[in-house]
């Protein structure tokens, strides 16, 4: 078992003085800690609960040249995460207990952060036949979130059944809202810039119409619906409306959709090609507002690693996606805290407490006594520059290369054990 630790001179996310005592991998009373505890001076550092990502692509099994569970976990802890959720679009697809257990065990064996597999909603993510979600839930991986991410569960009947089915074990359906017919061959946000660039548009309505449908379906069946990576002002409006109406729904936004706009596509540099696409300034502002007022519950990375050759080409030939684990906190801080919209403690709630509750990831999301000691020490006064060499992810497709970002992660702890330090 790990040593007893006593951190002194820390600050809480709210800026108050804080001491953290850890025994047997859990937070304990400072007073009750035996005198054998190692005392660590945390001067200048802010302690936050370990970040929790509900949307991570780890690429293993099948695309280990882009990322593995190990490299993704290293990137995660460097970004301050102690729990990540592995999306099922691997090869083979995580639509059976076998695959989710494999990913879960890989995470356990590396023991850097908790890796919670997300199961596919439908067999092969084909949108037709439900996968054995019950078996995945009962497996060692205890899958609670199901998603066909990368694909939308488009068939209304299949979506309805999926929502109903997971009620049996408290599962949540995380929908990638994208009408496939309206987005065939789409390359970027449909608007002024796509028109000028001659890149096929991805209209906001293709996202919003699915969100609206799913909200109404869930109003009818009363299950747990989670909307992945919201990107449009209209989507925020719909979720806000649904929450007011008492429809059970949670929603996420990515850090990149809180900071970047479709104007960046003018470079034709596929590092900015992502699905759903970067939208307009007005959308970015609406998304930020949605996070502030709680319409959007969580910030999730949609960390999507791709090898160099999948980005070092013309836009249409390039893969969708950008990495984000190592920059998520800094980018979100820049978009929401530096801009004066939120306090750090509120941001941490969106990146740790709320996602832990949605995923039912016990032991994460809180610094309370008795809880697992999953936490991160950050320096809010230290900026850093994003550079290819510093990236721990196997893939380097970050849109922030060369940018200076606020907030540096110094140490990450999983159950009292230091898993990252710089």
């Amino acid at each position, binding site marked *: 078992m790990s040593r007893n630790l006593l951190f002194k001179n820390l600050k809480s996310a709210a800026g108050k003085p804080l001491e953290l005592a850890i025994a047997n991998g859990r937070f304990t009373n400072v007073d009750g800690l035996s005198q054998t505890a190692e005392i660590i001076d945390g001067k200048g550092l802010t302690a936050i609960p370990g970040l929790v990502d509900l949307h991570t692509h780890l690429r293993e099994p099948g695309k280990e040249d882009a990322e593995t569970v190990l490299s993704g976990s290293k990137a995660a802890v460097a970004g301050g995460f102690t729990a990540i959720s592995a999306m099922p679009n691997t090869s083979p697809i995580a639509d059976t207990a076998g695959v989710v257990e494999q990913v879960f065990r890989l995470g356990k064996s590396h023991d850097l952060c908790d890796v919670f597999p997300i199961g596919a909603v439908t067999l092969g993510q084909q949108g037709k036949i439900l996968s054995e979600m019950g078996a995945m839930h009962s497996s060692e991986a205890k899958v609670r979130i199901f998603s066909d991410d990368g694909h939308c569960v488009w068939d209304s009947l299949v979506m309805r059944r999926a929502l109903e089915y997971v009620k049996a074990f408290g599962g949540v359906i995380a929908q990638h809202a994208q009408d496939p017919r309206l987005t065939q061959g789409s*390359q970027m946000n*449909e*608007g*002024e810039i*796509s*028109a*000028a*660039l*001659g*890149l*096929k*548009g991805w*209209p906001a309505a293709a996202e919003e119409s699915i969100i609206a449908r799913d909200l109404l379906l869930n109003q009818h069946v009363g299950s747990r619906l989670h909307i992945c990576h919201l990107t449009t002002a209209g989507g925020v409006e719909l979720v806000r409306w649904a929450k007011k109406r008492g429809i059970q729904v949670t929603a996420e936004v990515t850090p990149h959709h809180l900071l970047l706009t479709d104007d960046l596509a003018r*470079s*034709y*540099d596929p590092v900015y090609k992502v699905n759903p696409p970067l939208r307009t300034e007005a959308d970015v502002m609406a998304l930020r507002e949605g996070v502030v007022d709680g319409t959007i519950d969580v910030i999730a990375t949609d960390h999507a690693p791709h090898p160099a*050759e999948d980005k*070092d*080409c*013309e*836009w*249409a*030939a390039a893969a969708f996606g950008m990495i984000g684990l190592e920059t998520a906190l800094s980018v979100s801080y820049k978009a929401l805290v530096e801009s004066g919209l939120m306090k750090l403690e509120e941001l941490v709630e969106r990146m740790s407490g709320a996602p832990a509750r949605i995923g039912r990831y016990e032991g994460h999301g809180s610094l309370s006594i008795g809880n697992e000691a999953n936490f991160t020490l950050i320096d809010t006064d230290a900026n850093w520059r994003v550079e290819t060499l510093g990236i721990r992810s196997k893939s380097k497709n970050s849109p922030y290369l060369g940018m200076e970002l606020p907030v540096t992660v110094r140490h990450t702890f999983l159950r009292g054990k230091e898993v990252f330090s710089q």
Partner: protein
Amino acid sequence: MNRHLLSINDLSKEEAINLLDTAAELARVTETPVKKLPTLRGRTIVNLFFEDSTRTRISFEAAAKRLSADVINFSAKGSSLSKGESLKDTALTLQAMGADGVVIRHPASGAAHRLASQKWMSGSVINAGDGTHEHPTQALLDAFTIRESLKDSSGDLSGLHVAIVGDVLHSRVARSNVLLLRKLGAKVTLVAPPTLLPVSVSSWGCSVQYDFDSGLHSFDVVMMLRVQRERMEDAFFPSEREYARRYGLNAARLSQLNSSCIVMHPGPMNRGLEISADSADSEKSVIVDQVKNGVAVRMAALYLLLGGE
């Protein structure tokens, strides 16, 4: 002038007019018995075509040869978006061969930009059509043709009203023409079914009309765009017959155009679909002049991009 010609936005109004003036001078040379100038002797120009386009390729080839450049034709159809060699590796190959200029035609919008902005190669890049983005030399040869027909071969295009008719959404010719015609002071009206216009077309600074028949007499130029028959499958329009009836240039519409109005088409034409045979062959048609002027305009582009070094 910019080292590359990727978009009409790479040219200021003065540079565009200078290019047209240069083309006019070069056109006179090509009318002499010896059609050759020594300007680009010893320089290598690669025609890199990822898409079939014989007419554009031979136009560039003729232009380069009349400037005494060495020309290499590199047909790489389907080799990028499919499994073959990547655009990057093709570029590295051309760099190794010492290409001074690359004329690229590619099905992906932005391919020419990628070639010019990455450090894959050092030569000048001329965009000969990238996906549904731009085709700047086509717009320049169109402006040249309009100027020759209606403006006494000099100055800008102010005071002229140009209608661009058809599949604006997918047309690189339309995008480059809108930018250049407006830069040169012309008024532009887009005529198309709403399905074949970008949703945010209002930001283009053009008039838009859905009805081809209104204001026909007010146009000085009617530029017809090629319609791809397979667009029907994506529900852009119901049938060829309906398209031809509502947006085709036929004898009835031709007769309503004002007496000095010219008819243009970038080719290849779908006779009977967007343009009737009698319109294409009428005395208002300058379609053959467009082809002829293409060589002079491309000579001017190559000369101004490569000749000064």
